[in-house]
């Protein structure tokens, strides 16, 4: 496990919640930030801030250098071939919309299929629904198995020449399941389909190599991986990026503008219209450097150890049901559960009273919630700053909730 002294890097962890020690167990929604990230952004604003690319003066040059250095850091973090394949966006949602609109509108039509999985976040469902309305392409879904894994055989059954896009999450934000994306990508490429991977949950928690994953597009957010809000990445294989139209037009993304048409700037700038999130990019790079200094394999091991500990402790609580794989095989640090006789929202309120922050609801995955037959679940998720003490606090809080509600 990671040395608990990392907790000292996260100023927020020293505050109390209603007089109790804070056990923050909602990093899958958004993570906390270490001072290294806060300092990097602060320093940029204090010492070298100006708009990027525009000014022929030193400050702008320094800001541009910092922004482009962040792109290089991001490229290295995910194993991209070159930094030009890294587009900074507002986050996973924007990244996935850019692919759906920029690639999907151009290349999809009647008779084509978009194959998604039943465990996608709304961010990898709704953009495709919108594109399906525009193009007539049909949405199909690969189901999940009874043990909460992706039904890969069923997915392969659905994969034929009419499938033009395969959209798959690299890790479910509800079940914690990590599907075999590399195998799926290889199969999808055999029928000539584009592979779009939602890396929002995987990137913060496991070493990522987009080449090995075999994705065509890979999307993730900064705020779930110790970085700031308002920044994310869309990585795309260069040939595929060249097939994509910009979703937004404006400054910075053009080569020349005539009255009735324009020509585009080179990639990646073509896809970054307007003033980009400069300080956020610098903050994201600081977060990546922070994680790399710990080592992403250490992060993954730490999450796995806590998850295993939590699965053990929770399975001892009567009336508690876990929605997700019950062993550590291909599974990340997200544990969703319900407790008989106590609605997840009541659990969240009671746990909050005990200083424990968890998420309750459908977690932006309504199709999955309906499939697993739990319209709402409680979810605890783990990250580098969590300890077994946080899990113990959760377990104590759950006993407290059962006592309060008088359930055995």
């Amino acid at each position: 496990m990671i040395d608990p002294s990392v907790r000292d890097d996260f100023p927020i962890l020293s505050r109390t919640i209603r007089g109790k020690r804070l056990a923050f167990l909602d990093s899958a929604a958004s993570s906390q930030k270490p001072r290294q990230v806060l300092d990097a952004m602060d320093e940029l604003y204090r010492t070298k801030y100006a708009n990027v690319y525009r000014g022929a003066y030193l400050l702008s040059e320094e800001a541009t250098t910092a922004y482009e250095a962040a792109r290089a850091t991001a490229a290295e973090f995910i194993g991209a071939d070159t930094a030009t394949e890294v587009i900074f966006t507002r986050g996973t949602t924007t990244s996935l919309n850019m692919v759906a609109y920029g690639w999907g509108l151009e290349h999809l039509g009647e008779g084509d299929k978009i194959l998604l999985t039943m465990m996608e976040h709304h961010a990898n469902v709704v953009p495709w629904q919108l594109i399906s309305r525009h193009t007539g392409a049909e949405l199909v879904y690969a189901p999940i198995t009874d043990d909460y894994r992706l039904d890969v055989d069923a997915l392969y059954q659905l994969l034929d020449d009419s499938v033009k896009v395969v959209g798959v999450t690299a890790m479910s934000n509800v079940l914690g399941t990590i599907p075999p994306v590399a195998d799926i990508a290889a199969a999808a490429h055999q029928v000539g389909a584009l592979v779009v991977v939602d890396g929002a949950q995987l990137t913060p928690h496991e070493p990522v190599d987009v080449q090995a994953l075999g994705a065509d597009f890979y999307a993730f957010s900064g705020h779930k991986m110790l970085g700031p809000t308002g920044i994310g990445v869309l990585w795309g294989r260069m040939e595929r990026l060249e097939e994509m139209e910009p979703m937004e037009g404006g400054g910075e993304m053009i080569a020349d503008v005539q009255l009735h048409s324009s020509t585009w700037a080179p990639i990646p700038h073509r896809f970054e219209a307007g003033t980009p999130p400069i300080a956020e990019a610098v903050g994201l790079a600081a977060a990546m450097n922070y994680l790399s200094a710990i080592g992403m394999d250490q992060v993954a091991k730490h999450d796995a150890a806590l998850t295993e500990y939590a699965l053990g402790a929770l399975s001892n609580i009567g009336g508690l049901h876990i929605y997700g794989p019950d062993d550590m095989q291909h599974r990340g640090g997200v544990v969703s559960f319900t407790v008989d006789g106590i609605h997840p929202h009541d659990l969240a309120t009671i746990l909050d009273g005990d200083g424990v922050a968890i998420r309750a609801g459908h977690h932006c995955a309504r199709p999955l919630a309906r499939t697993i037959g739990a319209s709402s679940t409680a979810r605890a998720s783990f990250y580098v700053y969590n300890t077994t003490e946080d899990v113990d606090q959760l377990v104590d809080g759950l006993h407290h909730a059962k006592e309060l509600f008088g359930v055995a």
Partner: protein
Amino acid sequence: MSLEELYREVILDHYRSPRHKGKLEHASAHAEGHNPLCGDEIALDLLVEGGKVTKVAITGQGCSISQASASMMAEAIEGKSLDEVRDLIGKFKAMMDIEGDPKDAGIDPARPGAALGDLEALQGVRKFPVRIKCANLPWTTLEQALEDV
């Protein structure tokens, strides 16, 4: 704030054994409400005869606050005239209105639910602002249903 203030025994009792559960064959009004954030759901049937709510039936699922509020509401409105029901909706909303000035609504800030009988038990929800919409859901659904009569 204390959790015991929120989860009064009477609330938990209504949550565990909701009153007026079910559907009406010949309802005069029907409305459905849901809270997309939490997934709370309420479906409400009313039978209105001679200007009175003579029967109420509710189905739903969700947290203890939304479901207890629905059950207590059903008990409170059955047998009441439409005017009395509308008056009760106003009083309930005033109790839950943490932004408004209690004096404007003519209620006692120390006991904002004083005029509400058993429903006063839901007063503790005021201290948990994110849960107020749960308590209000059955009441906004009732308002919708009354538009039909």
